[in-house]
């Protein structure tokens, strides 16, 4: 099983949303990381077949998805970033409707809906109108519909938006179980959501693919650039203005521990810290200057 994104580009008027991206997705959970506007949603909509690339093609097991048509959609599950429901649908009605569209017969559909509602903890709101559910519950309905046909390829665009911490953990566990022998691509700018469950990550910026690899491989890119030190509390504003600060923590002695990103330590008291995926993300997408990140060439 292999999903090949082959030199895919997409332009909207003057803006090049996706530029010559090539990626070979194999079974496992893939994290697609990028800031807002990086081109993640456009790429995912092209993988879903809802948007045609201007150049390049998307190929599943050797055949372009446009040619596979119904056969591709049969093994495909999709949760878009922003999605709606008909106002008068109840949770049960909606899932029954999508199950029919996914080709499940009535009995299969009923059984699968029951299973999934249990998995996403929505069994007791089955008869409630979706319009009256909370944002997190709506998101879980969206996740359930994506899983209805037990897809081989599952694409989730910002799936954890609106979920509380407990729901996020349950969602991560659900995906980890589900991902065996399947391709799961999760786009997010919330790094911890994919840091521990994704086997591989792809990082895109300004429509271009910056890097791909496992968490370990990618964090190596910022090895030697993550530092921590303790500074007096009154100097924190000055450090924040000079450095790319990742985190701040108040210590009991009145000082503040800061974790920052820099080519070289900023003072003698700084020590090298163990890099995490979030450090790489912030290195690539500096806060307040998202469009002016580090040179792309360094990571390719």
């Amino acid at each position, binding site marked *: 099983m292999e999903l090949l994104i082959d030199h895919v580009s997409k332009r909207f008027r003057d803006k090049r949303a996706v530029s010559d991206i090539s990626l070979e997705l194999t079974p496992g959970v893939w994290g697609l990381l990028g800031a807002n506007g990086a081109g993640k949603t456009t790429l995912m909509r092209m993988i879903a077949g809802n948007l045609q690339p201007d150049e390049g093609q998307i190929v599943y097991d050797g055949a372009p998805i446009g040619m596979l048509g*119904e056969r591709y*959609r049969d093994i495909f599950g*999709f*949760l878009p970033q922003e999605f709606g429901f008909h106002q008068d649908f109840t949770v049960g009605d909606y899932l029954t409707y999508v199950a029919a*569209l996914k*080709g499940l017969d009535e009995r299969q559909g009923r059984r699968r809906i029951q299973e999934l509602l249990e998995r996403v903890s929505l069994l007791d709101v089955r008869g409630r109108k979706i319009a009256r559910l909370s944002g997190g519950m709506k998101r879980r309905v969206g996740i359930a519909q994506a899983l209805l*046909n037990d897809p081989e390829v599952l694409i989730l665009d910002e799936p954890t938006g609106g979920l509380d911490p407990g729901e996020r953990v349950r969602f991560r566990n659900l995906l980890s179980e589900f991902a065996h022998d399947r391709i799961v691509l999760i786009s997010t700018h919330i790094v911890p959501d994919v840091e521990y469950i994704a086997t591989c990550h792809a990082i895109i910026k300004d429509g271009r693919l910056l890097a791909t690899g496992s968490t370990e491989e990618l964090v190596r890119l910022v090895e030697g650039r993550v530092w921590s030190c303790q500074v007096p509390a009154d100097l924190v504003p000055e450090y924040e203005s000079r450095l790319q600060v990742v985190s701040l923590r108040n210590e009991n002695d009145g000082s503040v521990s800061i974790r920052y990103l820099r080519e070289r330590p900023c003072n003698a008291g700084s020590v090298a810290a163990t890099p995490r995926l979030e450090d790489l993300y912030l290195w690539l997408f500096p806060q307040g200057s998202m469009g002016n990140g580090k040179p792309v060439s360094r990571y390719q």
Partner: protein
Amino acid sequence: MRILRLELKRVLKARITWILLALALLLSVLLAWLPTTYCYSNYTDEAGNEVNLTGLASIAYEKQLQSEAGGMVTPERVREAVETYQRCLAAYGVTESYDLPEGVYEREILPIAPLLHGVKEAFADPDTGMAPTIMEIDPEEIGDYYDVCESRIAALMEMEQPDSQAARRKAVEMYGKVGKPFQVYPGMSATVMDYQNIMGFLVLLFCVVIAAPVFSADYQSGADDILRCTRHGRARLGAAKLLAALIISGIAFVVCAVVHILTADSLFGWECTRTSVQMLYSIVTLADLNVGEFQLLFAVAGLLSVLASVSFTLFLSARCRSTVSSLACALVFSVAPVIISMAVPGALSTWLCSVLPASGTSIQASILYAMTDFQFLTLGGLAVWTPFAMIGASVIEIPLFSYLAVRSYCRHNA
């Protein structure tokens, strides 16, 4: 079938659908009853009191008064009616019926009035179209009443279609085939048909409002992104959505039309449906129908027009990205025949009003008025009576716009 069933369930679960369908049904009854409220009669009873009657009482009174006039409109009966009229007015030394003393018209003329319908028009001047008064008509000439009518249609068409010999020939040919003598059964007026037209137009608007968001609402809400990447989420879902909208609109129109016609005919009397349309409209109307058949044909044409409009609306819905734009465009096209018939002059107006999907039930430009008119679409030696053109256009538009709607939905964003 399952997808269609679920789609029907989805549309019917929407509160707005039920509100509009209930309103349409209520209006179809109301609009059948409303013409009865315009009926008014007054007379002086034996005790010398003036009696005013309205509504159903007025209809019953006039029907009873005109009961002798009902039946076949033979030239002999028309001649007798004209002679009675002329004798009455001569006896009172007047030339117009409204100059008769109070109560005389109701007593002498009203009972024979249904037979006098169209007499003046039949004897209109062939060059100017000016109708004479009944007093000026020679009763002896009425012996050839239907020949006079056939001469009248030829003269009328010379004025209506001076440039199209084909249209003139076609009209004379059609009128020659109209069954004669005519029949008349008093009690119903042309207002009843006007209200059937209003009912059809309102149901059309309601159906358009139901159909306008079918595709565009999914685009706008993002629901479409999920649905179109399911196994049956393209052509099958598109076709199911289309069929569901057509089925709901079709059933809604049929139910409303049946309820309206049953109510109207029950109120005005079922025998009225046997009246020839020539005794309700122009004496030279080209349609070979009685009122009952006319109501039915108008309902069928209205149904075709509603289905054509809904197909077109679904096409617009599949092309627009928001419900507001699809609804606005659909409503503009629904009222377009009304505006065009008022604002655009000449043959262009006739052509546009004949081919637009909503023409069949539109106000002013509907098939009702086309069937009582003498307009033809002409192209070289070809002349098509506008009601046939309207029905033909709807029959073509239903599959055409249905196909385009599903195709546009499948290709959305592609």
